[in-house]
């Protein structure tokens, strides 16, 4: 079979395509058919089964904020996934409560996805409700004012633009909120 591909270009071309498609189809087309949780939005009303909550599509203001997040490339430095690693759940917890692990059913409406690959800054999967509006405004104007040693770029053109700031804030406060993970419901606004 492979010997034939040595002298026949057509044969080599077809064989290379076939071998590629075996793995290609099995790892991209088949998985969402097997694992239904990828497409089924998170919903749980029964506290006995764990954290309650429901994933809803973003509202239009949050969508606008997400577009800004996408435009400015925030996702190059901030991931959005609490991994199945103990340190992730501890580090991205808040006021003594561990952050719940991210699950596929929390991201069903995300496009483009914002999982990210690099943490130059902290993970933002559960940032929603951790900091209030004033904190975010000051932080976007000059991150080093609140976090000395931070290397995040300043974004004055967002902080000083009420419409853009409001949208981005709304998006950030929505992050990770499908799961109502704060027992005291102590989310900042």
């Amino acid at each position: 079979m492979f010997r034939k591909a040595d002298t026949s270009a057509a044969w080599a071309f077809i064989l290379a395509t076939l071998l590629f498609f075996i793995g290609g189809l099995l790892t991209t087309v088949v998985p969402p058919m097997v694992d239904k949780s990828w497409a089924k939005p998170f919903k749980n009303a029964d506290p006995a089964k764990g954290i309650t909550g429901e994933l809803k599509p973003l509202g239009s203001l949050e969508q606008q904020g997400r577009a800004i997040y996408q435009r400015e490339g925030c996702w190059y430095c901030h991931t959005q996934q609490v991994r199945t690693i103990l340190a992730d759940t501890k580090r991205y917890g808040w006021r003594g409560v561990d952050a719940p692990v991210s699950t596929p059913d929390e991201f069903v409406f995300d496009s483009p996805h914002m999982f990210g690959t690099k943490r130059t800054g902290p993970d933002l999967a559960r940032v929603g409700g951790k900091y209030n509006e004033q904190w975010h405004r000051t932080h976007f104007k000059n991150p080093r004012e609140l976090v000395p040693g931070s290397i995040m770029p300043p974004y004055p053109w967002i902080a000083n633009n009420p419409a853009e700031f409001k949208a981005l804030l709304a998006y950030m406060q929505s992050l990770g909120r499908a799961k109502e993970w704060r027992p005291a419901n102590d989310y900042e606004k």
Partner: protein
Amino acid sequence: MLEQNSRAEASGTGAAVVHVDATAKWFIASSVLYFFIVGIIAIVIAAKFVWPDLMGTTPWLTYGRLRPLHVNGMLFGWLLAADMGLAFYVIPRLCGAPLWSEKLGVATAVLWNVIVLGAVVTLLAGQNQGWEYAELVPWLDALVVVAWLMFGANLLMTIAQRKYDAMYVSIWYVMGTVVWTAFVYLTGNLATLFTTGVNQANLNWMYVHNAVGLIFTPIGLAIAYYFIPRASNTPLFSHKLSMVGFWSLAFVYVWTGAHHMIHGPISQWLQTIAIAFSLMLLIPVWAVVYNLFATMKGQWHQLRENVPLKFLMSGVVFYLLTCFQGPMHSLRTVNAIVSKTDWIPGHAHMAVLGAFSFFAIAGTYHAVPKLWGRALHSQAMANWSYWMLMIGGLGFFVTLWLGGFWQGWQWNNVGIPFIDTVKALQPVWLVRFFSGIFMFAGIVLFAYNVMATVVGSSSEAAA
């Protein structure tokens, strides 16, 4: 052995064929120019890690806008364009036939430059689709597909008209690149449009992984397999072993995309499949590296004087190292430390710069004097460009590995506040910046040397 010898030498025996090479010239010259321009952006974003307020209040000069320009500029403006130019040089020679259509080829080169310029404008304007490596807006994606079809058709037609029945390994790799790139690119830039969430991420990472594994790897290896025997005037060690490497690559690479989400919100069984196949990558890698090392047996002394060969063999070593790292990262325990840290850019740069750019630079140094019919402007300068890129590259890779590993350990100690893990990396980023200066110096010397040869200010007699 003789048989292989004749294969490797096939390019030299097609004396009757006149190669016009206009397409190869256009691609190579423009890619070298982008290497230089995008190198400036690389320095700027490395500096921003150390001096975060640098150019900080102009939207289009922020890190978030410049990073995609750096990545896309290097991947598509420099490396893929240089690889395509070298394929236009190599394939007709290995086939003993002229390029099927120079007109189509030059049109492809023009279109490619339109795409790169379009990418610069749209990315700086913040038009970013939000997927890594697939940032370009849909109309540019469509142009890339058109350009790729033009490129592929031209080379496949040339291969169909070849004079020699048996195909040298570089021909398969180029054919593989043509077909795999088409489907990988469509998965990452078209199929993602119709999906959301984890499903979309899975497609995105199939693309991200295979942009390197099934685009830059096969075309880079096609170049290494051609130029190592050419530059050292030594036949390839084993044709059969090169087959093992090619067909195992064709089968195992595509399975591994989900290893970008290990421990993340994606099915555990899919992570396990990705890990298993990531380990299997060691098979094609070892087949290739063994073959290329064995080719050099008894010929290593040539590295002293031969600059293209220095780049090629250093590239093979970096290829081995980066392809050893990859499978190791996919192991759950190692991944829990290195994933999302600065180790990863260290790894990625060793693949794209250390291995594949070194191959492309070597091919360019070898091909440019032949294409323009003049001796290289300066051998000494070429040698300096090697050492600058080597020292800068090693400084870059090694500091980011050490720093990244350290960072990963700190993250896993939840007693350390996140900001302290940022401050701890400052010395690492400073060394990375200075390593970048060395690398950029190497790029400047390379680009100047090539351009001086192209415009004909040779200080030596024509070869």
